């Protein structure tokens, strides 16, 4: 089709070869400019109405929808008006401007470089000792200036990734500061618990479930850890630290909602699905003589996601 259009039409030129303002390139793009003008006027009017409407809506304490629809439609009308103006009522063009290659010429480069080098030479010649000293001082400034910038921000990690607030004998405590007693959790029940000293703590949070009424042995050496079917795991996911909050009773699994890792309760919260790489730490429990659920000891491994110094233990 475009073959039939013929070559591009050149602008008209006068005797001196200058482009004439009568060339089609200088004419407006619209065939019927009055029509476009009319449309544009209507659009501007509509925008005006929208903006006034916003003023009214605002003073009347109008809803978000009224506020937004008035000013938003006003802006759209304004935008379309400007677009019609720019597209149809302006000289059609196209116009062109020349472009030189970006790369500089050899002479330009040489002139710059030689200026730079000769002047620089005057400044530093036979003063290489000064240059070195200056460099050393500046480098040290750079390093020490970073100290307050970074080091002041927070404490060293220290042991904070290794320890929770759970200790030998800690009572299992609910978020509203109630100590958990035998019978508080039915079979199939689930409860988030904390040590008394850190209720609401993000790192100490622990999930207590009760799959059955008899003791559960998840791994050798953990024979006494889950008396009467009460079993507790760190609630901090070993993947990226979300709270592992969903207990699926039928399959006795814990689900982390963030990336759907599944942990098998009877297997000591071994991850069986999803990206979590390590089991949740298990909290050894005992039931004291008054019937309170308490920790035999703190967690025997760092809880939560991995970090460089954590070592290769699982």
């Amino acid at each position, binding site marked *: 089709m475009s073959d039939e259009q013929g070559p591009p039409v050149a602008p008209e030129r006068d005797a001196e070869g200058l482009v004439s303002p009568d060339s089609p390139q200088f004419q407006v793009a619209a065939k019927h400019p009055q029509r476009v003008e009319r449309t544009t006027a209507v659009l501007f009017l509509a925008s005006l109405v929208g903006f006034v409407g916003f003023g009214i809506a605002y003073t009347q304490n109008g809803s978000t929808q009224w506020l937004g629809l008035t000013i*938003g439609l006003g802006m759209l009308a304004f935008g379309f008006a400007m677009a019609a103006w720019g597209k149809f009522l302006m000289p059609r063009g196209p116009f062109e401007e020349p472009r030189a290659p970006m790369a500089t010429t050899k002479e330009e480069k040489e002139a710059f470089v030689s200026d730079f080098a000769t002047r620089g030479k005057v400044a530093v010649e036979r003063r290489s000792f000064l240059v070195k000293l200056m460099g050393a001082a500046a480098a040290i400034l750079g390093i020490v200036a970073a100290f307050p910038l970074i080091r002041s921000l927070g404490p060293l990690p220290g042991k904070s990734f290794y320890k929770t607030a759970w200790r030998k004998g800690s009572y299992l405590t609910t978020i509203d500061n109630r100590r958990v007693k035998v019978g508080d959790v039915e079979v199939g029940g689930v409860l988030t618990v904390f040590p008394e000293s850190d209720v609401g703590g993000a790192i100490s949070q622990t999930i207590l479930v009760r799959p059955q009424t008899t003791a559960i042995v998840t791994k050798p050496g953990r024979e006494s850890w889950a008396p009467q079917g009460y079993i507790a795991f760190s609630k901090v996911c070993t993947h990226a630290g979300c709270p592992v909050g969903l207990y699926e009773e039928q399959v006795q699994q814990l689900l982390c909602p963030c990336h759907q890792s599944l942990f098998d309760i009877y297997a000591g919260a071994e991850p069986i699905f999803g990206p979590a790489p390590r089991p949740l730490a298990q909290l050894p429990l005992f039931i004291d003589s008054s019937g309170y659920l308490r920790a035999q000891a703190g967690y025997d491994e760092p809880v939560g996601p991995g970090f460089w110094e954590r070592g290769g233990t699982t």
Partner: protein
Amino acid sequence: MIDNLFNWIDDRLAISRGGRHLLNKIFPDHWSFMLGEIALYSFIVLLLTGIFLTLYFVPSESSIVYHGAYLPIDGQHVSQAFASTLDITFSVRGGLLIRQMHHWAANIFIGSAVVHLLRIFFTGGFRRPREVNWIVGANLLILGIFNGFLGYSLPDDLVSGTGIRIAFSILESVPFAGSYLATFLFGGNFPGNGAIIPRFFIIQVLILPLAILGLLSAHLGMLVRHKHTQFKTPGAREDNVVGTPLWPTFMTKTLAFFFLTTGITVLLGAVAQINPIWQYGQYYPWKVSYAVQPDWYMGWLDGALRVMPSWEIHLPGHMIPNVFFPAVLLPGITFTVLMMYPFIEERLTGNVAEHHLLDRPRDRPVRTAFGCAVFAFYFVLFGASATDVLANYLNLSLNFVLWTFRILCIVVPIVVFPVAYKICKELEGVPEGGKRKVHNLIVRDPAGGYSTIPAEEYPGYESIELEPVDVEKVESLTAAAAAKNGDGRTEGVYEIPREYR
């Protein structure tokens, strides 16, 4: 009045010296050049709406008893950050509109930057001399994503708090320095000592926006220096730029575009709910939010976290945690390769010449196929961020959905590459492909027969191509007209011919 003012200023700042040249700057007419403009204008909307929000938002994690306009949580303990966001939403007049506009604008900003990136990539707009501008652009994208993440983390709601928790774990996972980085930034092990929201705030409202403004100035400065690239339309050559001049045509059009972008953002803010934090509630570290997705531009990372197998590397006394691979290594590689791409291509093709004329994607089948395959990979990751939602919705097992995505991650790019390549090759053979066609009308005559005739012109358009006029010549034309008029007036140039008046 105006004349005097202009003269006064011009005599002191010499605007007319060189300013005339700026009026003549030529902007190509292709629609795809508007993508960068959308990004630019949504950034302006972000700045304006963001300033409004800072006047009311309280960046503090300290707890207060809520007695605001949102009655369902009356009397509960919430953080000041959360409470003040609710106040903006329910008590500040127009506050919800501005809040939602701000959030929408962030999504549009990053979205248009990504599409803009794709257009530059597929047309080869990154080639010499624009490699540096490509790198600046990539950094704009990175900063934009960071700023967006920090922004939606501020209200301290359940969804964003979960995101911050994951961010902590990602920082913590960095080999050697991770535990230090994380405790320094948060002021201790998670959730830190109350420093994180104030810190995110200052980074989000001051540091990153300034960095973006700086890079943006460099981006647009280089654009002026290089002048625009252009497609191979009639008259377009390596040594010119064809299009519309800055004043008045482009100015009018781009102003129109600013208003359209802003108008759409306002409408979205008015009718499309976004981030209803009052439904999520205050963040508590032990509370679970189920089936919540991060903002879309974090989706590929979320997806990567999900499809990553449960591996980690154990070394004597040390480890490289699982999240390091999808959440640190993958984005690290992604953005490094992105920034290096112009040089990779230069190395592979040996083509180191300056290019100001753009490629049609089909004319570079290998690049196009590669780009499609890579993009498809990230698209699959993005889809993988919805594994749980999909499993629920389609009634499939999570296991099945997850494995499907793990396989798709590998298979889709491998399939997309040859398909895209083949399509390019097919299109390459179509000689007229890509040129503007004259539309045809199918008409039915009274006897019931059908025939095609060329359609009437698009209103206001003629199908004839016009040869570009040199703007410098227009300057001489202005001079000629001034000389003819004898008194410096420049009538006769850029004038609407009389019969159209």
